[in-house]
């Protein structure tokens, strides 16, 4: 197995409360091969976004990297100097965010915000950078880019702004694109277009993708491998098709059965949706042992006390449950 592009090993992120620190993310490990699309799925507050931010080295108070290693192309980057990390950001690993409305500087034309990448990383002068920005806009299929580069963010729709974000991120041909819920704020039809665009451009440029989302279907459709996160831990990670065909962890099974899916009612008539009882725990009161135990239908005493070990599954899959499968 060639060395993976990105290898995250027992990542631990601490949240400093007043007087006490919590483990927002605990021994999270995964690998992304060169050009591969890897999905990280979970509900709000499960720690998926801060995992992405830690890979970019963008964690800020009260969050901090408390342990584990982040290895990019064989080299540890979790505690390199700020200057060196800056050289990686945008050049080797890039990121796009969820809120297209607020992710761009409202007072600066979009063209200039793309051109900044070329000035920063390739020492281009501003005119040359603006021309390349125009090409970048054309690549993300923004209509009449020569006019649009002068527009301000508030003059573009949500979908357009997300295309600008993608143009910015892929400007310097990074090896890895971290996408934190890129289409959650967009409408369904626009979401489909943006996902297709991202997949197409990353495939063409050989860019690997770390896709963060709460939509299991969306991630399974776009990524080769998927990891499911719950309350700061990866509970299951498999090849995309296997996640839906043979979900192993009770949480994954619960998620898949609880969501109404198209065509289901026509085939089997309206069934009562299978519920996952209880509520999503907040960081301050994560239960002991397996953090899903209060809501798990197959809970036993061991689940309430001992944190389950990672047991391997076929095709490099892994699951953390005392009664898996």
């Amino acid at each position, binding site marked *: 197995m060639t060395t993976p592009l990105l290898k995250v090993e027992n990542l631990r992120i601490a949240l400093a409360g007043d007087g006490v620190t919590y483990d927002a993310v605990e021994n999270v490990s995964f690998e992304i091969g060169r050009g591969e699309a890897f999905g990280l799925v979970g509900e709000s507050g499960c720690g998926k976004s801060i995992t992405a931010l830690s890979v970019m080295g963008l964690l800020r108070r009260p969050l901090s990297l408390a342990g584990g290693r982040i290895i990019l192309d064989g080299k540890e980057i979790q505690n390199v100097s700020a200057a060196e990390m800056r050289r990686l950001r945008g050049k080797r690993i890039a990121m796009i965010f969820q809120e297209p409305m607020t992710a761009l500087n409202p007072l600066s034309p979009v063209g200039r915000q793309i051109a900044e990448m070329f000035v920063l990383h390739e020492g281009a002068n501003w005119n040359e950078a603006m021309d390349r920005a125009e090409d970048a806009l054309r690549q993300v299929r923004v209509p009449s880019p020569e006019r649009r580069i002068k527009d301000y963010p508030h003059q573009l729709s949500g979908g357009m702004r997300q295309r600008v974000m993608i143009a910015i991120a892929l400007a310097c041909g990074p090896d890895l694109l971290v996408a934190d819920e890129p289409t959650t704020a967009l409408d369904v039809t626009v979401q489909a277009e943006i996902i297709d665009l991202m997949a197409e451009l990353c495939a063409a440029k050989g860019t690997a993708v770390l896709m963060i989302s709460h939509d299991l279907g*969306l991630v399974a459709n776009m990524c080769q491998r998927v990891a499911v996160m719950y309350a700061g831990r990866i509970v299951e990670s498999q090849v995309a098709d296997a996640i839906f065909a043979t979900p192993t962890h009770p949480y994954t099974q619960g998620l898949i059965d609880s*969501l109404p*899916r198209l065509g289901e009612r026509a085939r089997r008539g309206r069934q009562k949706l299978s519920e996952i009882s209880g509520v*999503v725990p907040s960081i301050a009161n994560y239960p002991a042992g397996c953090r899903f135990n209060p*809501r798990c239908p197959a809970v036993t005493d061991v689940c309430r006390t001992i944190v389950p070990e990672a047991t391997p599954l076929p095709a490099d899959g892994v699951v953390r449950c005392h009664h898996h499968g």
Partner: protein
Amino acid sequence: MAEPLLSLDDLAVHFKVGNALAGGIKTLKAVDGVTLDVKPGECLGLVGESGCGKSTLALAIMGLLPPTRGAMNVDGQQISGATPPDRMKMARTVQMVFQDPYASLNPRQTVRRTLADPLRLHGITDKAEVEARVIDMMAKVGLRPEQADRYPHEFSGGQRQRIGIARALILKPKLVLCDEPVSALDVSIRAQIINLLLELKDEMGLAYIMISHDLGVVEHVSDRVAVMYLGRIVEQGGWQEIFENPRHPYTRALIAAIPDPFHRAAISADAKARGEIASALNPPSGCHFNPRCPLKADICTAEYPAFGEVSPGHRAACHFRDRVG
């Protein structure tokens, strides 16, 4: 054929936008001629993306927004221009469940007062009866009596939505309008609320208008479905008709845009819509969907299509409604 509980006839809600000096006054046709009925005990699914006017339509039906044109009739009573006594009767007939659980409850009011005040307002002053109905309604939505004296910030998102539902049902209405009731909730507790809404519908013989952009939810709960685009209904029919035999390209695009991990692609991928959602301020000429429609022809830009019948109870506003599919 039971008398319809709610009937809208060519309902329109227009807004004046901009001011006389800067760029003149334009009219935003948020809702532009909607005709539909809801029979007692029936669930009508209302589907559409942002900017299609479904929330404006909801506010107009609830009497919170004065309609610019058209008539609204609830249980044989005209809504627009309702006098205070009519509004009280309206309150006992039509109620609403809101999208954002964190904004739909008065933070300074206990659950008991949120449920008891409307009863007292509507003439039920006997203490014992008020108390009994409050506790009974709380039990119906899955809340324990001792939670009655708690404040909203002490509840999770899902529990708050239950309180919102209890408040909507406390006056025993006949029709409940649910505006995206689960889209703001954590994925794993959506099923709890969907099942609850369906149980209460059967138990209390309620009619629902279910507004959602999530087609999976709409297919699961609706008896009939209406699809809205730029303030108008473009397709309407029984749920099986709409999801298995959609005849309007926009409906097909909505279905095609949903990631389909089970590869049950009833609709081929090329039915996906292209480009951006048009603005309701200056809609495209002819059929509003033509700039994004894969089947676009000259007639589409020339003339707005009739809302013709495809089969009994199934209508679509498209020149090629018979050829599609």
